[in-house]
């Protein structure tokens, strides 16, 4: 058990009364509740925590927040194993198990460090340049090795054991960030009565205020504000929640890490919750992010951003080093130097500016900080941690260092290159171009930030008091924009007096060159992707000058941290190479997510069996009770087959199909789309949407119809029955019920507004039972109460109404199997009762259950087209149905169906296919080739569907074949590239069974 050698005896916002044990790479450590993994590791003196992506260089903890580029670790194990988590964002919990990654065999002795020695050969884009030869296929060989070497960490392949959920939420004002500006804005907006949501990515409210010393002036202010917000009914505070994405119309994605701070989520709770927040107004109080300065060796463990060091001292009571050098170009790092010294470190401050701020310098020197003006860090030295820095005189005007330098031993180097406002969410929305603030040497939100309101440091205002005042104003403005009354006299009752305004301007400084003014090696810009300033220079030399090209060529900013600590430097360096200003280089587009977000959070509960809802027919439970197996067809669960003991699918459907042909079968067809069409113009309407005529259809008669799309391709088919003079009952295919309904509504609402027609989906209103087979009429006659079902009274395509066993029914004599058949419709609540009544009545007639697999085989025998032929690429003529198209009236698709290309004789046409060898087995999808021709390419057509035909006693298929009808009688080869089989098939008419339709009419 290691001791916490770097833990201060006082301070911090950790709970010193609650000890927490954790392991890192198998070693046991202790920390406190309130620590992050990063702070606990630092407290325990652990500096080396990771290896870099490409060169496997030793890396330590660089920041204290979500911008961390270095300290990526793998958390937990087993199914909860999660790579690439930022140690700076992991709340410490008892039993936490973290491991280093991207190293072998160990973090301390990583053999892949060889990449660092090979770095001259591994510059940006090296694989594009060096891995393309010597032959054209070389890349295929190299790719495997490159892909194996690439990547960070290893994801688990086990199922995620945790639960996630999505919640829709709404508010008037959403405030992102709970620093001084955010808190101030939230309080101001809440006072107007607006519904306010305050979102904070950390566990604690306070933002930058938490980096201030405990017990200081801001603590009282912070406590007051939090109490005020927590007491308000109209305020919701989301902690451990990151607004990762901003989308259209004020919609935001927020991931709340509900259980990530625990060993595992509590029982009955989710690990993460995705909030889909819709805010009328949004205040971005997202603060600013500190920038580094590049110099040789600037990636060594022990080098940290100065603001992060303050955070570790004041929030976590950790002193990251006892011999510190602070390197800065601005005032903010002086506070870090002072607090380091007050905590017991010996501190040297190198200020690149010619003159240090007088008061700050004096304060620093009072506590023992050695302040060096006009001084820069030339180089950091050390192997696995920083051991010393080389300091040199620095001329701010020329940007050059002097020839002489001196070495200063240290174990901590704090760097501050200035601060960049963090407005990623605004940038995600595009639209508003950021402006470049010369004083801050940073981009700030542009003037036309109409979509969001920005407050505090995110605007470029870095003093605390200014942030509080600005937040207050912006919060009121947000509420006002939501039409809440804002009293003019309301004062800023949220004053917080802090003297942290910068007194001297920042010196823009991006990289310290060598003494000779040349670029230096190992001067990293993007730490996570190992992009150096030399890579940027290379990109420029090779013509990748555009910021977008720079990004893609070097991969700068494309790591999981999105280059939060790198982008500004890169732009500045490219600007320098090109001799233009930074704004002229431009910036790349930020895209969601702001920080890596688990896929599980996006999926929420919609995973596994609940990925999509299932639609069940009214007879579903009956089928279950009778042993049906179900098939997902679209989102319907349909009775697939009813196996007898020992039967598989194949045996069951062959039996069911044969039984129906010899006796009678009962099939659940409730999934058919059903549309109620009513109105005085209903006949005219149908006449326009169907290819065939409808005006002459008598009442109580049904007709088969086909609809085309506007482009002349077949859209859907089905039967429509005239219920009354102005009332029709349309059925569609199961799959196209929705699209057909939408199309009909569209036509009536936008194209034919003059027609008095109403369409209503009644798919769920009606259950449908099909009985089919030679003895169907016998069964039906036994079921109906008061209906004459004789051929004379109920002929083919006739319809009647009445009752069956006391159940109201609508009976239509139609068939999909080619046998004598009826579809019996009843209101859905009676569906099961009707089904059972028919089933019971059929027992004497040997009525058999028939699933849709058998139904499919029967329709193949009969040669009916279905979804596998109505593909959106077939015309009426392709399907052999051109005679149905009326020549006496126009209809949708009638014009474009006459396009030249759709009339060509070599189009793929609907045909039947029968195996030449009766023992051969056919599968749908096989391609058709002429015998003797090489089976290359797409062939002349394909089998759309195949099945064993009990009638033909062999496999038959339907297919689409180029010039198919003219090929009837010829033999083709059905080539299945997956099974690697070639089966000779005879091209036939698609109507294998009862081609004259005598059975159905009998």
């Amino acid at each position, binding site marked *: 058990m290691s001791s916490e050698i770097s833990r201060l005896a006082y301070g911090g916002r950790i709970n010193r009364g609650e000890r927490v044990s954790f392991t890192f790479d198998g070693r046991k450590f202790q920390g406190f509740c309130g620590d992050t993994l990063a702070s606990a590791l630092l407290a325990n003196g652990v500096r080396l925590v990771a290896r870099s992506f490409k060169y496997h260089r030793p890396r330590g903890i660089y920041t204290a927040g979500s911008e961390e580029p270095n300290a990526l670790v793998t958390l937990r194990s087993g199914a909860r194993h999660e790579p690439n988590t930022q140690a700076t964002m992991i709340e410490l919990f008892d039993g936490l198990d973290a491991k280093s990654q991207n190293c072998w065999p160990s973090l301390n002795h990583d053999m892949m460090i060889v990449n660092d020695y090979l770095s001259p050969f591994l510059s940006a884009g090296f694989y594009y340049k060096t891995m393309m030869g010597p032959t054209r296929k070389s890349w295929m060989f190299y790719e495997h090795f490159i892909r194996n070497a690439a990547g960070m960490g290893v994801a688990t392949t086990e199922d995620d054991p945790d*639960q996630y*959920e*999505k*919640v*829709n*939420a*709404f508010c008037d004002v959403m405030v992102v960030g709970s620093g001084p500006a955010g808190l101030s804005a939230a309080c101001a907006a809440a006072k107007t009565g607006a*519904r306010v949501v305050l979102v904070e990515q950390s566990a604690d409210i306070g933002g930058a205020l938490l980096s201030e010393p405990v017990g200081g002036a801001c603590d009282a202010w912070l406590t007051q504000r939090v109490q005020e917000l927590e007491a308000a009914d109209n305020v*919701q505070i*989301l*902690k*451990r*929640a990151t607004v990762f994405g901003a989308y259209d119309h004020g919609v935001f994605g927020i991931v*709340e890490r*509900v*259980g990530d701070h625990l060993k595992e989520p*509590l029982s*009955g*709770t*989710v690990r993460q*919750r995705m909030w*889909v927040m*819709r805010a009328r107004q949004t205040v971005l109080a997202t603060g600013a992010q500190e920038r580094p300065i590049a110099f040789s060796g600037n990636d060594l463990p022990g080098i940290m951003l100065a603001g992060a060091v303050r955070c570790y001292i004041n929030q976590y009571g950790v002193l990251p080093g006892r011999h510190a050098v602070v390197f800065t170009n601005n005032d903010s790092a002086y506070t870090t130097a002072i607090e380091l010294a007050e905590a017991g470190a010996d501190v040297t401050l190198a200020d690149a500016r010619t003159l240090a701020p007088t008061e700050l310098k004096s304060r620093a020197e009072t506590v023992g900080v050695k302040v060096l003006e006009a001084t820069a860090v030339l180089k950091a030295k050390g192997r696995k941690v920083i051991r010393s820095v080389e300091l040199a005189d620095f001329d701010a005007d020329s940007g050059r260092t002097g020839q002489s330098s001196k070495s200063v031993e240290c174990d901590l180097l704090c760097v501050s290159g200035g601060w960049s406002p963090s407005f990623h969410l605004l940038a995600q929305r595009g639209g508003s171009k950021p402006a470049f603030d010369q004083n801050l040497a940073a981009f700030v939100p542009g003037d036309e930030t109409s979509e969001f309101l920005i407050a505090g440091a995110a605007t470029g205002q870095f003093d605390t008091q200014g942030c509080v005042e600005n937040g207050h104003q912006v919060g009121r403005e947000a509420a006002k924009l939501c039409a809440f009354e804002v009293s003019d006299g309301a004062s800023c009752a949220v004053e917080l007096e802090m003297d942290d305004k910068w007194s001297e301007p920042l010196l823009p400084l991006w990289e310290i060159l060598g003494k000779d003014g040349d670029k230096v090696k190992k001067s990293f810009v993007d730490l996570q992707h190992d992009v150096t300033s030399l890579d940027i220079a290379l990109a420029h030399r090779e013509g990748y000058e555009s910021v977008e090209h720079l990004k893609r060529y070097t991969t700068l900013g494309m790591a999981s941290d999105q280059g939060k600590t790198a982008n500004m430097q890169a732009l500045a360096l490219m600007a320098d190479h090109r001799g233009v200003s930074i704004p002229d280089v431009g910036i790349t587009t930020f895209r969601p997510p702001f920080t890596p977000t688990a896929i599980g959070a996006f999926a929420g*509960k*919609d995973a596994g069996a*609940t990925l*999509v*809802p*299932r*639609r*069940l*027919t*009214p007879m*579903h*439970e009956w089928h279950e009770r009778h042993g049906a197996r179900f098939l997902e067809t679209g*989102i*319907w669960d349909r009775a697939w087959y009813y196996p007898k003991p020992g039967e598989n699918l194949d045996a069951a459907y062959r039996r069911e199909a044969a039984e129906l042909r010899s006796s009678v079968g009962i099939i659940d067809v409730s999934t058919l789309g059903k549309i*109620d069409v*009513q*109105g*005085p113009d209903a006949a005219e309407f149908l006449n326009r949407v169907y290819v065939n005529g409808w005006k002459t259809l008598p009442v109580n008669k049904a007709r088969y119809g086909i609809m085309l799309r506007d482009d002349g391709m077949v859209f859907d088919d089905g039967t429509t029955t005239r219920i009354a003079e*102005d009332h029709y009952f349309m059925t569609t295919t199961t799959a196209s019920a929705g699209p057909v309904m939408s199309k009909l509504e569209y036509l009536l609402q936008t194209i034919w507004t003059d027609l*008095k027609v*109403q369409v*209503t989906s*009644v*798919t*769920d*209103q*009606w259950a449908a039972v099909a009985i089919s087979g030679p003895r169907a009429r016998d069964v039906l006659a036994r079921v109906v109460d008061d209906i004459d079902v004789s051929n004379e009274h109920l002929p083919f395509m006739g319809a009647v109404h009445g009752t069956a*066993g*006391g*159940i109201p029914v609508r009976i239509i004599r139609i068939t999909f199997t080619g046998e004598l058949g009826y579809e019996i419709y009843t*209101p*859905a*609540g*009676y*569906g*099961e*009762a009707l089904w059972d009544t028919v089933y019971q009545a059929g027992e004497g007639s040997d009525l058999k259950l028939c699933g849709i697999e058998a139904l499919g085989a029967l329709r193949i025998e009969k040669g009916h087209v279905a979804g596998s032929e109505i593909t959106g690429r077939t015309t009426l003529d392709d399907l052999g149905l051109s005679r149905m198209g009326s020549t006496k009236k126009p209809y949708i698709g009638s014009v474009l169906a006459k396009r030249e290309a759709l009339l060509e004789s070599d189009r793929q046409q609907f045909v039947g296919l029968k195996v030449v060898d009766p023992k051969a087995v056919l599968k749908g999808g096989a391609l058709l080739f002429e015998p003797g021709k090489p089976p290359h390419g797409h062939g002349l057509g394909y089998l759309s569907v195949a099945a064993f035909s009990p009638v033909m006693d062999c496999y038959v298929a339907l297919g689409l074949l180029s010039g198919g009808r003219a090929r009837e009688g010829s033999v083709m080869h059905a080539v299945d590239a997956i099974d690697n089989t070639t089966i000779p098939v005879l091209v036939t008419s698609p109507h294998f069974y009862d081609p004259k339709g005598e059975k159905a009419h009998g």
Partner: protein
Amino acid sequence: MVEVRSALVSMASENDLRPVIERPDICFQELPVGDLVSVSAWPDCFVDVSEKVSGVLGVKTPETYRVASGNDVHTMYMVAPHRFLIASEVQELSVSLLPCLDGDKGTLTELGHSRTRIRIHGPNARALLARGVAIDLDPAVFPSGEFVQSAIHHMWLLIHNVSSEQEGDAYDVYVLRSFAVSFWHWLVSSMELLGNETSA
């Protein structure tokens, strides 16, 4: 006469025809639909038909697509231009309404078997629905008496806020019958995670 079978009968306890799940913070139960019809009028007949239908039902004609109007027996929802969905606690609604359309003034379609009605009520009713529906359910925005047509997890819904002082937050949700079991499963699984928020 054969009983109308609930789509959720398999979710109900033994001997019950309709399912109920009760917890102190939330309750949902299937209620009988009674009858449900869609009444549409041609644009030039809409006012006339509306008045007649309102007269027959004793219900004020809804004026917006958000506010339902009704009495103890009938509820009228204006679900589309010139179109009402009318729910009733009694059967045979179409018989009494068809005369309102005499003279080819519109159409009537029976839909009583096409929907399942589930009442969700209790202090967490809103939180439960918020897990699925992208509608602001805050009473200030969506007060009692209002309804919306929306979807949860791809399932079409009509949600009617029927909150009252006696019952507190309460919503009648109409779901297509074929989705009823899936929706019930969604409710149950969402409920299991309710009330355990650790930081919200």
